[in-house]
């Protein structure tokens, strides 16, 4: 199968949805500039021009509301933010309006809007360009929240999201943009709300989110050298969560690692840990382990970034400890997945 980049896969999904429904349009700050959101809006821009790939003023809250209003009228809107933090200006429109409009009005007011946003990491992005806030949105009934981790899912999940009659938050990790992978040609949907067992394994379940999926896959290779099989589940969607796939896996392995890109406290890792403890307590051989960020804003200095982000070796050590009771010797030959050198 042909291989393309994650950013190109996002672009393909967008283009397909726009070709299929002439009322779909994109909005966002600078999305029609030459860099075209790291290339992800380029094909749509070339084909449909700035009337359907609409640059907007720096007015996130109102522009989100305007997207909601147009979506209610039957013009599905894809709103794009270069960093998730800009979207926080629009929390009122997302949480109070988009998430409530259909429910509050007795099912008469669907809001087909997709809100794409990017999470930064590394090269000193610091505290306001790097937050993984999917749990914040997952807390809100009425929203759907997806985090495609592979190029194939980037296309299939975004395509599903644009066709979905509900508000969908699509969170894209910056380090995934240049990742290359097999992506089918043409139309296909990856269902929202369904996790993906990427590689089965009998010893430990690892539920991973976004970029952590790739760290978990690397950890799996290293753990195999110790004779430990990690079952890697790409969670894909944090609202609604596919509890059945997680529970099935934990009932088989009896051990759970949750690898998240976000802060540990009140994160999605806490939710999954609680859910498994409530519903599969007697299947657990050990307490669940959460690999997540410390309770601190993201620092800028490379020396602090290095300590701040969990490593592949943390997943390896957690896997060893769950199976053998010991983290063992220092993990050798840990691959470096991304050499992100900025600037943005």
């Amino acid at each position, binding site marked *: 199968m042909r291989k393309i980049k994650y950013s190109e896969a996002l672009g393909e999904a967008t283009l397909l949805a726009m070709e299929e429904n002439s*009322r779909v*349009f994109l909005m966002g700050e600078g999305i029609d500039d030459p860099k075209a959101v790291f290339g992800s809006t380029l094909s749509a821009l070339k084909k449909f021009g700035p*009337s359907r790939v609409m640059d*907007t*003023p720096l*007015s996130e*809250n*109102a*522009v*989100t*509301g*305007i*997207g*909601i*209003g*147009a*979506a*209610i*009228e*039957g*013009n599905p809107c894809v709103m794009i933010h270069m960093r998730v933090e800009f979207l926080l200006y629009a929390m*009122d*429109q997302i949480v*109070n*309006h988009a998430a409530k*409009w*259909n*429910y*509050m*009005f*007795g*099912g*008469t*007011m*669907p*809001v087909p809007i997709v809100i794409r946003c990017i999470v930064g990491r590394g090269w000193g992005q610091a505290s306001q360009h790097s937050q993984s806030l999917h749990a914040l949105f997952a807390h809100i*009934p*009425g929203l*759907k929240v997806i985090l495609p981790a592979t190029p194939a899912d980037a296309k299939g999940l975004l395509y599903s999201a644009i066709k979905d*009659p*509900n508000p969908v938050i699509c969170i894209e990790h910056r380090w995934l943009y240049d990742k290359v992978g097999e992506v089918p040609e043409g139309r296909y949907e990856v269902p929202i709300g369904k996790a993906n067992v990427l590689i089965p394994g009998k010893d430990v379940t690892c539920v991973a989110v976004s970029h952590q999926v790739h760290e978990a896959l690397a950890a799996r290779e290293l753990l195999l050298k110790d004779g430990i099989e990690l079952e890697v589940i790409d969670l894909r969607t944090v609202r609604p969560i596919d509890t059945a796939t997680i529970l099935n896996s934990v009932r088989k392995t009896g051990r759970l690692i949750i690898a998240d890109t976000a802060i540990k406290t009140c994160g999605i890792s806490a939710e999954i840990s609680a859910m498994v403890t409530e519903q599969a307590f007697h299947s657990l051989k050990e307490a669940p382990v959460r690999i997540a960020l410390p309770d601190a804003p993201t620092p800028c200095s490379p020396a602090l970034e290095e300590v701040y982000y969990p490593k592949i070796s943390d997943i390896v050590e957690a896997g060893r400890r769950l199976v053998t009771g010991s983290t063992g010797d220092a993990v050798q030959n840990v691959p470096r997945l991304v050499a992100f050198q900025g600037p943005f």
Partner: protein
Amino acid sequence: MANLKSDTLKSLYTKMLRIRRVEETIADEYPNKEMKCPVHLSIGQEAVPVGICEQLSTADRVYSTHRCHAHYLAKDGSVPKMIAELFGKVTGCCRGKGGSMHLVDHEKGMMGSSALVGGTIPLAVGSALSFSIEKKPLVSIAFFGDGGSEEGLFYESMNFAALKKLPVIFAIENNQYATYSHQKSRQATTDIYKRGDSFGIPSAQVDGNDVETVYHTAKEAIERGRKGQGPTVIEFQTYRWRDHVGPSTDIEVGYRTQAELDGWMEKCPIQRLETKLLAQGLLTPRERDEIEAKIKTEIAEAFAFARESRYPNPSEIYTDIYA
């Protein structure tokens, strides 16, 4: 300003009177505790929604606020479905999920109302953006108050609407108070309509208790919108007679005077039009009584419908979270 036809004047009168009587009945019935939700009554402010909505089709859009009863009724929303909604019944316009602050009638173009002040301003602009993209000669109305005009959403929305020349009317019902805070304690300058100037939007400040003035001012704005000439800001000066929330009068709270209220009650939009119509022979006392009687029956039937309707089943907590 051309004179309105007598049919139009009678329609304006009937619609304002219906809103007044619905609101008064809600106030009278509220102590019975069958309507278990906060109500923000529109008594005194009937002219603005009626003067505007009289000129709209069902395909034109209205977005509203927590004080939404008058907008819903002016846009021809069903009275029984409204009262059933206030009763929390499954036959309500939101199946009992919205209540008094969230009235909707998609088929009539009443697109919903938000309890977050200013929250629906951009939604109305979004409808207008859709009309502009689809080249439909329709308009969208954002109703909000002097409080809503203080939100950043208003300024962001005006900029966007002016930039894209969208057919939206920012219809500001300035009743001077945000709950119990007077406009002068909140705004550095109080001519809200002048905010439109900064964005090059045609703007006006008019008597919001004179339904004919409302009608004529809105007419120009609606025509401008339909011709693709962009948005309009209109500040309507009006006044709420009852408490911010709840059925009562509120002079005893101490934030406004009886004299101030009396002054505005003398400018009652319904009385003003009725006096004129009777004087000019466009309405006879008998016709007036017939209108009153018809409205009374309609309201009684609506309350009976609400009482007889069932509550939603418990399982409906989980319906319509997603479309």
